[in-house]
């Protein structure tokens, strides 16, 4: 009997090895281990054997069955893996077709990005961000900022005025409403609402009746104001140097050029060293178009707060003999144009999506 078991085991082993598909292997399994197959029958009939043969035969048949089951399992695994591989190879994609698009990516307008970038530099320098009304009065926009009655920017050609409900417009009346021409009116408003020390920047929309490649009737400025007991012109230079390096690169230098603004004394214009050339000459030997060969680019106007401006808010602790400070104002679009090479200010207000997506 045990000879027959060995025979079956050998025969079945050969059949398992010969099976080349999972279907053929299943046939082998049914043939040798199925309900009607010889080995299971043999196992079922062990009870009929004489008692002295039962143990040995039963053990041998059981071992043979377990060995065959394991062999089928192993072989089945191999065949299934091979067949899966085969199937996957035929399950082919054209991988060169376009991918699913990413969720659409929206962009902040370049003006907003630049504004935030500048805000963050000054927040790091200890400045707070203050915002003020765009419709201002003659008092805050001109008078309180030490503008002489004859200052040309008061004219209807230089400032948008709000049409009064009744009466003719009086551009010299302190309460007359206008669209602010700069963010500077917030200097006085901020000092009225907060005693010194004050460190603020004021971003916002401003308006001037002008339209060409470098002027739009509406644009954005950032004002800066620092008033304390010991602020110096050198502090202004250091602050703007830090700003210039943060925005235009660590290699930048700044220089101060004397100028005139009614609300600062001394007044200076600030130039940053050109980041497009060396000494006005580009890498390919041309005259630098950005700085026009001068190696310097004007970026803003500034100065030490005029004592007359402080005197407007002397009651709130701004005695010009006790506190002093600096102020500056820059155009956000101008900074963005310089940094990103945008050639025409009007593009900012055109809002072409192809431009918006670039930044």
């Amino acid at each position, binding site marked *: 009997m045990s000879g027959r078991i060995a025979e079956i085991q050998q025969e079945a082993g050969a059949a398992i090895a010969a099976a080349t598909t999972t279907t053929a292997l299943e046939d082998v399994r049914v043939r040798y281990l199925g309900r009607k197959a010889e080995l299971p029958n043999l196992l079922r009939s062990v009870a009929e054997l004489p008692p002295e043969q039962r143990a040995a035969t039963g053990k041998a048949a059981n071992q043979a069955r377990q060995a065959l089951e394991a062999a089928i399992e192993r072989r089945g695994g191999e065949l299934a893996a091979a067949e899966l591989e085969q199937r996957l190879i035929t399950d082919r994609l054209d991988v060169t077709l*376009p991918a*699913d698009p990413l969720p*659409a*990516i*929206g*962009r*902040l*307008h370049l*003006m907003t990005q630049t504004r*935030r970038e500048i805000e963050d530099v000054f*927040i790091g320098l*200890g*400045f*707070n*961000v203050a915002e003020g009304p*765009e*419709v*201002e*009065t003659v008092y805050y926009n001109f008078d309180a900022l030490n503008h002489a009655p*004859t200052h040309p920017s008061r004219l*209807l*050609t230089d400032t*948008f*005025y*709000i*049409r*009064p409900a009744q009466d003719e417009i009086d551009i010299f009346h302190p309460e007359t*409403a206008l669209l602010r021409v700069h963010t500077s009116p917030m200097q006085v408003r901020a000092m009225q609402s907060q005693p010194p*020390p004050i*460190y603020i920047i004021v971003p916002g929309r401003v*308006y001037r*009746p002008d339209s060409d490649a470098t002027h739009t*009737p509406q644009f954005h400025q950032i004002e800066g104001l*620092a008033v*304390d007991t*010991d*602020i*110096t*012109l*050198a*502090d202004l*230079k*250091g602050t703007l140097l*830090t700003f210039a390096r943060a925005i235009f690169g660590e290699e930048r230098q*700044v*220089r*101060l*050029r*004397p*100028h*005139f603004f*009614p609300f600062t*004394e*001394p007044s200076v214009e600030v130039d940053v060293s050109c980041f497009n050339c060396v000494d006005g000459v580009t890498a390919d030997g041309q005259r630098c178009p950005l700085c026009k060969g001068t190696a310097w680019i004007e970026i803003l106007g500034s100065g030490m707060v005029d*004592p007359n401006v402080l005197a407007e808010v002397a009651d709130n602790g701004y005695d010009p003999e006790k506190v002093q400070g600096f102020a500056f104002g820059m155009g956000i679009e101008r900074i963005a144009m310089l940094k990103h090479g945008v050639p025409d200010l009007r593009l900012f*207000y055109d*809002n*072409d*999506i192809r431009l*918006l997506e670039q930044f």
Partner: protein
Amino acid sequence: MRVPLEWLHEYCAPDLDVLALADRLAMTGTEVERVERHGVSGLDNFVVGKVLRAEQHPDADRLRVCLVDTGDGEPSQIVCGAPNVATGQTVAVARPGAVMPDGTKLKVAKLRGQPSNGMILAEDEVAIGTDHDGIMVLPDEVPPGTPLQRVLPIATDVLVLEVTPNRPDCLGIYGVAREVHAATGAELSAPPWAEDPGAADRNARDVTELVRIDVECPELCPRFTARVFEDVKIAPSPPWLKARLMAAGQRPISNIVDITNYVMLLTGQPLHAFDLDRIAGAQLTVRTAHDGETMQTLDGQTRTLDSEMVLIADADGPTSIAGVMGGARSEVEPTTTRVLMEVANWNGANIHRTSLKLGLRSEASSRNEKGLQPEQAMEAQAIAAQLIIDLCGASLVPGTIDIGGDGPPPKTILLRDARITSLLGVEIPRSRSAEILIALEFDPHPVFDGLEVTVPAFRRADVTREADLIEEVARLGALESLPATLPSRHGAAGRLTEVQRLRRGAADALTAQGLHEIVGWSFEGPELAARLRIADRAVVELENPMSTEQSRLRTTLLGSLLDVGRRNRSRGAPALRLFEAGAVYLPREGARPDEPYHVAALLSGPVRRATWRDPEPPPADFFAAKGVLAGVLDSIRVPWSLRADPQTEPFLHPGRAARILIDGEPAGWIGEIHPQVAAGWDWTEAIAAFEVDLDAVAATVHGHVAHYRDLTSFPEIREDLAVIVPDTVSAAEVLAVVRAAGSSLLAGAEVFDVYRDEHRIGAGNVSLALRLRFRAPDRTLTDEEVAARRRKIVAALGSELNGRVRDS
């Protein structure tokens, strides 16, 4: 302000080329707009010549054939068309090779068969005058071959300066020379008014016998001076004077007029010449005008004056608008022989106002309005007198009428050393400060803590305080080597406010959903408002808009979104996802307008990009906009809801419009744009949009701090429930009833399906499938507890909304 270097060099000639000088001026506070070349670009081949012979051209009536000695050996034959050319004249010659001001290069030519080796010059041909009637005849003593530049200023560089309003003293060449002296250290010549031919008899009475002057408004006319010249011969000015005027941008006219312009350009002080014989009654009165009084100005216009304007009148009425423009009636003419030279000082603000009100600007008004100093009047008289005597063959009638005299005595200001250091952040030696101030003609005297500085008259208006002196010291002595330091700050710390962080958060939430930010105009026109159907809304209007389209301030951000949308569509953009954040302007009674900060978004076209797998994504509609709105408001954690209302906004589709409620209060709108409004922007597809007042949002979240809730210790039990309600009942109403009945154990309820089928659930009904989430904070809920709560919800839906649970 145009400064010809040839002229400037008469008073101060630094050893710098023009660009280096421009740079030095820019770095010390005088803005140089640009550097120009006036006249010829190269001096070569422009020489003095002597006409040896001038004969009629054989074949041309109007031409002469001249033999001209140009100093280089063989005389040259030159054909000349000028009627005044004659043998023996000393003339200006351009030889072949000369480059004319217009850039053409002169060549040997043949004129009607006669060779011409160059050209005898008229003044306009080298841009030193406007006359083309004849050639220039030069003084005989100049030898042939002399470079022409030595005799005539045929070429000069011109600095075009932008003089800041605080420096009217730099509106004259000599004032600029002072500045150049201080900036470069080059020597400054004595002022051109140092020698006054009338000085000796300034107080003589003779002139008062010829004319009588009254000033009725001395506060508006602090000084009025007049001199009289007799035997004046009106003629063209000499070439040197014409050349300087031309280079400075003024057309030469006649000697007297040219002298007034020349002296004004040199000193900054306007002058006015009257024909004394045409002054009615030989008397001038300076007075304010009567309201409505009229006069004709030199430009031929009739001007209507008001009672704040100052005029100069003679016995027949007004002859001049003071400080602005003269009248035709007493103007100098070719036949004039007696000239009254008026030089006066006016109130700058008053002149500014007059010029503004009349819309009349002149070289005189643009200087007078800056606020000149009374001393300048006599400086101008002195130079003018010398020139009129020299160039017009005139004699000065002894005496000067001078009403008002010099200005107030000079001011002395203390300049503390310590103050310079504390303001600039760098120490300037006292000696250096003194040196700078002396170069600027201030008069400093050392005292124990600094300098006592006397301000010269010509800087009286600009320098009134210590800070002004510090600016002078800084611009010439400190800026170039200023250190860069940071403020000590004394503990000040910077951060964004809650509102600013909220605004950034809202914008970021929008870009995260694929919307691009635009920046629109604050302006709009009435036509846009009409297209939006909000023409009747109160708006802020501009007094002086640049165009009708920009004549008012916007009350909604929708207009600019639609404008930008249309522009991009016309350029081929298939889908639009745009937003804008910024102020709108709402008028208020008797005050500045309210300027709430809004954020608005617009969606149109496919919600996603079409791809080969998803070729037709659905177009953006109300729910697309609602999703974006939720993205914004949920990300900044503000409680919000919508209330359907066909009246929400006139520009919305009435069936697809809702008010946005923040904490129950209206704070914006959402909807699809009314098709007729969309058509106004050439739009046929659906446009979904919303606008919300972020300031209102900010108020509700002010000070809000999120607190921890335990959502993980005990499980949530989820149940679905389908309820059939009449179609008129909104999902929000269903959810409100569910939430109320679910009480605190109901953690959440959402609609996840909507179903209509008149056969299965009846016409006019809708089935809403709800997902209910139950949770208790302190225990795991039992099935019985949840079942009881569910029964309450079902009962409430039945009793309050006539709803029934759908079984299948």
